[in-house]
């Protein structure tokens, strides 16, 4: 097993280097000339991020053969915050869950197309889903602390992964990182259920940081929180951006505008058989999406003309 992992590592660095060579060219042409023809069926204005950590190619996720979202092709940048916005049922959450193979846990879920992470196909049969989830952490909509002490919540990940080192230090580090240490340092041994909702969500982020991931996926992390807790989590995200790549699903457009570097707008398409399937309308720099989107549907949504 260990051999196989290193093999993958080598392969990945190789591919990342190749990417590094070719990408700046594409980037420049996309920036310089706005009349570049549509790539992969995407609107012309699509721009590539500086360095891609995920490359999605015609991804379709279906539940029991019914497609929930399809035709997703875009890159997600390293050390960037990428926001996925759109109306309910447009497949944002479905899509974010296929970035760390959480959809594997849902019976009947199937992912087609290519999800490349550092150039490696996450759905390759040789890829260990458990290893994927260790590297690509996730924070959920509703804070889900474990029914254990604050300390054990943080220590759980490092323990199951057999991480070496001083556990007390690890816990302190993770909590400090999530700007929670000062609030909880005197009650580390108390049950995490005694914390406020906002603290619980930051605990979940700290828990995720403790296993030293590469990417953090956040599925509507603030939807259950008040504006003050939301503000704290947004500040935290901006802090974390330097070390991690973040993908966030949000229903709150102001949130997307405040924190994200790039925004993908999804919509729901009704097929002839009345089946609802999510599609990507466009992905671009957040500023452009909110001030000068290429697609009228995006404009209608971000300006609040449609719900």
């Amino acid at each position, binding site marked *: 097993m260990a051999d196989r992992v290193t093999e993958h590592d080598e392969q990945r660095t190789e591919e990342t280097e190749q990417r590094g060579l070719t990408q700046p060219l594409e980037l420049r042409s996309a920036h310089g000339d706005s009349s570049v023809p549509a790539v992969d069926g995407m609107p012309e204005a699509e721009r590539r991020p500086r360095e891609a950590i995920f490359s999605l190619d015609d991804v379709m996720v279906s539940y029991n053969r019914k497609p929930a979202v399809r035709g997703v092709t875009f890159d997600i940048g390293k050390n960037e915050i990428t926001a996925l916005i759109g109306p309910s049922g447009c497949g944002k959450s479905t899509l974010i869950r296929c970035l760390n193979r959480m959809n594997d*846990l849902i*019976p009947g879920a199937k992912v087609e197309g290519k999800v490349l992470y550092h150039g490696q196909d996450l759905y390759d049969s040789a890829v260990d889903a*458990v290893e994927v989830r*260790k590297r690509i952490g996730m924070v959920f909509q*509703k804070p*889900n602390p474990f029914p254990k002490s604050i300390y054990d919540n943080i220590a*759980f990940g490092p323990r199951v*992964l057999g991480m070496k080192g001083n556990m007390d230090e690890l816990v302190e580090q993770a909590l400090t990182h999530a700007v929670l240490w000062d609030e909880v340092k005197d009650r580390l041994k108390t049950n995490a*259920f005694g914390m406020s909702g906002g603290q619980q969500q930051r605990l979940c982020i700290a828990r995720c940081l403790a*296993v030293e991931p590469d990417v953090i996926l956040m599925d509507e992390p603030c939807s259950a929180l008040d504006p003050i807790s939301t503000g704290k989590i947004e500040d935290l995200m901006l802090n974390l951006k330097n070390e991690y790549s973040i993908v966030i699903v949000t229903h709150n457009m102001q949130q997307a505008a405040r924190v994200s570097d790039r925004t993908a707008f999804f919509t729901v398409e009704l097929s002839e058989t009345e089946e609802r399937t999510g599609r990507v309308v466009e992905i671009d720099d957040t500023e452009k999406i909110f001030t000068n989107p290429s697609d009228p549907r995006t404009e209608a949504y971000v300006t609040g003309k449609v719900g």
Partner: protein
Amino acid sequence: MSAHAQPVGTPSAKNRAKDRGFVIGLLLCVGVSILLLGVLLVDIVADGAGNLTWNFITSFSSINADQSGIQAAFWGTIWLMGVCALFIVPVGVATAVYLEEYADETRWYNRFIELNIQNLAAVPSIVYGILGLAFLVRGPLSLGPVILAGGLTLGLLVLPVVIVASREAIRAVPPSIREGSMALGATQWQTIWRQVLPASIPGIATGVILALARAIGETAPLIVIGAATFIAFNPEGLDSAFTAMPIQIFDWITRPSNDVNDYRPLAAAGILLLMIMLLVMNSVAIWLRNRYEQKW
């Protein structure tokens, strides 16, 4: 305007009488069951309390009623419960974990297992006695009428109770806990062992205690597998012959009593002791549930 200005009417006499009648009917039903239990308790206490002495607990059964005690049966029951618990906890919890966490409900064999477990809970206990006799006491295992055979027979009898209770406890752990654990890179087994099972221990423990509380009063299967009725020694191991409290009580009741030897108060005292043990077990189960139950 005028319609709204009128005061809100009072309920009609007919409706009020109906309401009253319904509540009284309910109270009557509750009353009947409480009354029956009360009569039973008073009767048993009146007959047996005088005999429930330390001497009664520490003496072996005897022809002489005044020297007779329940010691062998008491320790027989404790041994049976021990064997039963050691059998039902691992098997019951493992079955529950499989059915809740791994089994694909769309497969026919998993649905078949589920259906069977539900049916097993309704099988009369004497049938388990026959099963124990045919497969444990005689037949393939040929253990003889010993503690091990008795404990396993009772275990088979209450296994469905443990499985159902454990499944419910496991199902009560929200999926978000499993997701949170898996998202950190824990394997499914690590998630079950370190998150799901610890969180469901109170529910599982409650189920196990209630299952044992059912097993402790079972008589028929033990009679069928050939438990002894008259023994003057405590069990010394899994291969000891044994008697159990319900059997001892049954034996005392069936013995002809006369002026010299009246066994009936002994039976009452035995019942009282059995009921005290049951009460303690159920109290522990309730306490466990209230003390450790996780509010999600």
